[in-house]
Structures are given as structure tokens and as C-alpha cells.
């Protein structure tokens, strides 16, 4: 009896000591493709970016942060299982990154159901802040509407009136084609055809040939990663670009251009919201990133850094890690980081910042392995993303 009492007293003492040193513990799960075709633009690099954000946030704020990671293999079912396990048994507070739109939409639902926070950087579908928007989701880096208007708008303005799409056959490709087709039609252009290609694919020559015989002025690639690399490589091989048809890479990352080589990729016009060589701050951060990974960061990895940093600032400012309160704080506080500069998170969860229209350099213009782009135009933040009232998001009143 006395023994039990002693143990209880000790436990009570421990508990009190615990509260005396209470720190908010935050656990962030970085979920992405760690082995498949998106693993270079997301993967371990996104984990490193999240760790850099924790480092820059500082250890002196009374918040301890733990980063965990997992591979969703681009499959919605696998991603959903990981998310449920993280939220239900491993006390994860927020999930970050999540490329592949089909997986991201699944995580978007689960996060809302479990009332946690979803910091998306990797996925493209504009539905995350449109029809499927959620009070628990922030979409940081880019989306299909922004890509469509950036690259698509520029191509139409340059005279590309007729389009043929090569579309990756899943949520992302469909959303990107839909958004780009809308831009083309709004500008008086015409979509003469499209073909849905199995994802992921290796040989695109057959689809490219269909695009070629359609006679369209522009071939829009509504795909990403390895699919885009193979399409561009093979378009050059089959003389499509030499034949006068233009290729619009609707989602192209610096890493893809690096993999293609400037010989093949030169002249390609594309839109990104981040490039390592934008200014002194991005160069400095990218050097830190490269030291740890051996590569320059992609736009998605930069977005993971920005989103995680802003999330941690919001946890500090809100004084709680309650999901709704933190997300509300994230929308209330202006954002400020070295990669995306000053910006804001809108009520629909859309983070807005400048976007850039780049052109891939010719081999003789490039001064180094990663010197890939020249800036054609800067699209200001308020023009780069879909107007608040057009997304159909229920949070917008």
C-alpha cells in the first residue's frame, strides 16, 4: 500500500516536472515519392529542405520539431495508409510536400477528417484550393491554373493558336489540360486534339506522331518528370520542333532540364515560381542545400522550406498547435522567407507569390552545369494565381 502511494507520488512529481519544462512538440511528416519518377524533384531533398526550415526557425522558441518521412510511391492507397497511421498512432501534426495530385487529393480529405494540417508543395492540381479546398490545407508552390496561364498564356500571346495535348492519364494531367485549354480558348485559340498517355510512360513517339499529324501549332505536354523528359527528347528526335511545331512544357522543373541537357532542351519556355539563381538569397540557400544533397533544389523543395517555416512561425504566434488555429494564423500573418520573398496565404489556402517565365539557355550561353534559364518575364503575385472568386472554394464568401 505504502509502496503504491510512493510510486504514485513519484509519477505525479514527474508529471509536474514535465509541465514545468513543457515545450510544444511538433511532428511534421514529409510524404513524397522517394524512389520513383518524382523522387529527384521531391524525395529526400524535400526532407532536407524541411530540416533547413527547422534550423532557420531556431531552437530557442520553446518548440521542438521532429521531421519524419515516408514514400507514397505515387499511389493514393499507399499515401492514405501512411497518413492515417501518422495521424492516428504517431502523433504527426502536419504532412508536408505530397507530389502527385491523386495522392494529394486523398491526403487533403484525410487531413480534414482528422483535423490536422496539410502543407502541400509538390502537387499541381488547382482543385486543392478550388472545388476541394479545405480549412486544413495550404497549397504553397504552384498549381495547374498558374502553369496554364504562365506558359500557356505566353505561347498563345506568341501566336500559338492551335493546340494538341499529350496528357498524363491521371488527376494532375487532366487538371493541367483542362486549365490550359481554358486559357487557349479564352485567348481565341483552338484545341484540335489530345491524347491521354498511360502514366508513367517510356515511349511517346507514337503520341507525338499523332500530335504532329494534327498540324497543331503548339504541342502541350500536360505531364511531368520522366514523362516530360522522354516526350521532349523524342520530339527533338522526330524532328517535330524543327518542323515548326512548338513544344509547351507545361510543368518542367530545373532538374528535368538538367537531365535533358541544353542541346535538346534549348529554347523551351516554361514557368516556375522558384529558380536557384534568382538572387543572392536564393543562391546562398541553394548552396546550403547543395552541400547536403549534391544537387540544386527544385521549386517543390524550395516550397517545402517556405511552407514548413511559415507553419512553425504560425505555431509560435498562435501559442498552440491546434490545426484550425494554426492555419488561420498562417493566413493572417504575411509570409516572408528568403526563397519566395514576401507574400501571403489566401483564405482558400492558396499561397501567392511571383512566378517567372523562363527560357532554357542555348548551350553556349550557359556558364555552368546548373546555369539553365534566362528570365523572360516576371508574373506578379496578384496575376500569377487564379482570382479568389473563380475557384469555387466554399471558404470564400
Amino acid at each position, binding site marked *: 500500500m505504502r509502496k503504491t502511494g510512493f510510486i504514485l507520488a513519484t509519477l505525479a512529481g514527474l508529471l509536474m516536472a514535465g509541465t514545468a519544462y513543457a515545450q510544444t512538440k511538433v511532428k511534421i511528416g514529409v510524404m513524397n515519392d522517394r*524512389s520513383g519518377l518524382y523522387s529527384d524533384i521531391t*524525395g529526400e531533398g524535400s526532407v532536407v529542405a524541411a530540416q533547413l526550415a527547422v534550423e532557420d526557425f531556431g531552437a530557442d522558441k520553446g518548440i521542438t520539431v521532429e521531421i519524419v518521412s515516408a514514400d507514397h510511391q505515387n499511389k493514393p492507397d499507399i499515401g492514405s495508409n501512411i497518413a492515417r497511421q501518422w495521424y492516428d498512432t504517431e502523433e504527426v501534426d502536419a504532412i508536408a510536400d505530397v507530389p502527385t495530385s491523386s495522392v494529394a487529393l486523398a491526403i487533403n480529405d484525410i487531413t480534414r477528417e482528422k483535423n490536422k494540417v496539410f502543407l502541400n508543395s509538390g502537387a499541381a492540381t488547382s482543385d486543392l484550393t478550388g472545388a476541394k479546398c479545405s480549412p486544413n490545407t495550404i497549397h504553397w508552390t504552384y498549381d495547374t491554373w498558374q502553369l496554364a496561364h504562365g506558359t500557356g498564356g505566353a505561347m498563345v500571346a506568341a501566336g500559338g493558336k492551335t493546340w494538341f495535348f499529350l496528357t498524363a492519364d491521371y488527376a494532375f494531367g487532366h487538371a493541367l489540360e483542362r486549365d490550359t485549354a481554358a486559357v487557349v480558348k479564352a485567348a481565341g485559340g483552338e484545341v484540335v486534339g489530345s491524347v*491521354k498517355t498511360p502514366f508513367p510512360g*517510356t515511349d511517346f513517339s507514337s503520341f507525338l506522331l499523332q500530335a504532329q499529324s494534327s498540324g497543331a501549332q503548339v504541342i502541350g505536354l500536360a505531364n511531368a518528370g520522366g514523362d516530360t523528359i522522354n516526350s521532349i527528347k523524342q520530339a527533338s528526335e*522526330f524532328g517535330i520542333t524543327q518542323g515548326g511545331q512548338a513544344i509547351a512544357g507545361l510543368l518542367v522543373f530545373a*532538374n528535368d532540364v538538367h*537531365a535533358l541537357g541544353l542541346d535538346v532542351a534549348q529554347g523551351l519556355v516554361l514557368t516556375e515560381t522558384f529558380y536557384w539563381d534568382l538572387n543572392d538569397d536564393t543562391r546562398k540557400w541553394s548552396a546550403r542545400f547543395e552541400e547536403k544533397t549534391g544537387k540544386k533544389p527544385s521549386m517543390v523543395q524550395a516550397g517545402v522550406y517556405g511552407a514548413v517555416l511559415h507553419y512553425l512561425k504560425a505555431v509560435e504566434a498562435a501559442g498552440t498547435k491546434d490545426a484550425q488555429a494554426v492555419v488561420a494564423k498562417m493566413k493572417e500573418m504575411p509570409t516572408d522567407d528568403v526563397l519566395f520573398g514576401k507574400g501571403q496565404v489566401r483564405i482558400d489556402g492558396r499561397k501567392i507569390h511571383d512566378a517567372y517565365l523562363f527560357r532554357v539557355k542555348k548551350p553556349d550561353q550557359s556558364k555552368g552545369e546548373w546555369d539553365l534559364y534566362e528570365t523572360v518575364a516576371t508574373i506578379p503575385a496578384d496575376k500569377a494565381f487564379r482570382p479568389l472568386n473563380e475557384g469555387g472554394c466554399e471558404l470564400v464568401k
Partner: protein
Amino acid sequence: MFELLGIPPQALFGQLLLGLINGSFYAILSLGLAIIFGLLNIINFTHGAQYMMGAFVAWMLLNYLGIPYWGALIVVPIIVGATGIVLERLLISRLYHLDHLYGLLLTFGLALIITGIFRNQYGISGLPYAIPKQLAGGQNLGFMFLPNYRGWVVVVSLVVCLATWFAIEKTRLGGYLRAATENPTMVGAFGINVPRLITLTYGFGVALAAFAGVLAAPIYSVNPNMGADVIIVVFAVVVIGGMGSILGSILTGFGLGLVEGLTRVFYPEGSAVVIFVIMAIVLLVKPAGLFGREA
């Protein structure tokens, strides 16, 4: 202008030709698999990784040693084939007396390890490998623009496939090989070193995969997953052709390339599964495959 099933004939010819080109890769790869299965009774799941290694070694030779495409076409199969021989001697040879399943598990594990090492080292985006200057450009065939390099792929694959078929079915060495599969003890009794014969056969099968890898390097992205993407299709080709049938794997490889090419025109969404649908049907109707012998 007349149309065939709603598609202008020019476009159809173009697609058929493209199917034939993809079929060349299926044929060479499934040929290697069929040889290894036919003579060693090993289901070589490492084949895709060895195809990927072929492309990567070609890239390494060019970038580290300055050896161009033409040199790589000869040197790469030798190097990768040699690694295959080492694998066979060290690991695979210990499994011949066990069930197929063990060989499958071992080679599958090896494939994952090899792919993992390359992914760790070179990332997933892939590496650029240019088409050799002599084969750059293309011919305008009227109904399509045929890149010279693709034409070269079809021709060289046909030659390699037929030469291999000839060597196995029509020469004395091939005779030994076929005899050794039927009855290794008897062939050994005639003074032929059967284990060495088997090791060399495995090495040759792997060299074929590496050769296909070099052929693929200039047109597909050279990345660690390139083997995993194609190997499942190639297995289906081998199963349809009849496990272990040399001629069967060659004909089915080209044939299925054509079928896949046509599917890309008429129902693009289905082009990734059409081969597996055919496999299911063939297995139902003729379980030993189109050219296989009933066991």
C-alpha cells in the same frame, strides 16, 4: 483521301513502324530472358536492371573515358556480361537444384539492390546521352519522318536476334547447349564442361540486355528505373511466346510491339495494359504460350 478505321493510312503506317521499333527492344530483351530460362531454368528478374546498367555504363564510358557510342556498343555488353558471370558464379549457381521460386527471389532482390545503388548515385531524373552524329537526322518516308537512329535500332536488333537464333539452333555449340539443358549428366559424360557452358550462357543473356540498354540510351531517358518500367512487359512477352522458346520470344517481341503501337492509335489509355490482356487470353487458351512446348 480514303481512311482505314477512321485513321488516315499514312498515320497507320507510321504507327506500325513505331510499334516495330519498340518491338525490337522487347525482342532483344525477351530473347535474353528466354535463353537464360531455357538453358538455366532461372527466371532472371535482374534482366531489367542489367538493361539499365547497359545504358549507364555507356554513359560512364562516354563521360569518364571518352569512349563514344560505337565503342560502347561493343565494350558495354562485355563489361556488363562479365558482371553477370560473376553473379552467376557467386550466387545464382547455388540455386539450380532448388525450386524456380528461389532463383526468382534472388534475382528480384539483386535487381532492387542494383537499381537502388544507381538511384542513390545518380538520382532519378536521368542523364543525357546524345544520338551519335552519324545517325542524327532522319528520312522523310512520305507517310512519316523516320529518325535514322530508330531505323538503325530495328536493323541491328533483327540482325542480333537472328544471329543468336542461328547460333543456338544451327551450330555445334548451340547443340551442346541444348543437349546440356535436356540432360546435363549425359553431356558432361562426353567431356563437356557443363557448368562453364551454363555460366557463359548466363553471361551472354546479360550481354544481350546490356546491348539493348546501349541501344536505348540515346532515345529514352537514362535513369535507374528504365529497367523496372520495361521488364514486366518483357516478361509478358516471354510468357506469351512460350517460356524458353527462342524463336517464339523474337516473333512475339516484334508482334506485340505492333499490337501496342496500334492500341496507341485506337485506344491510347489502354496501351499500357493491352499486352497483359493478351497474356491472360493466351494463358487461358494455350497455357504453354504460342510457341512453347507442352511440358
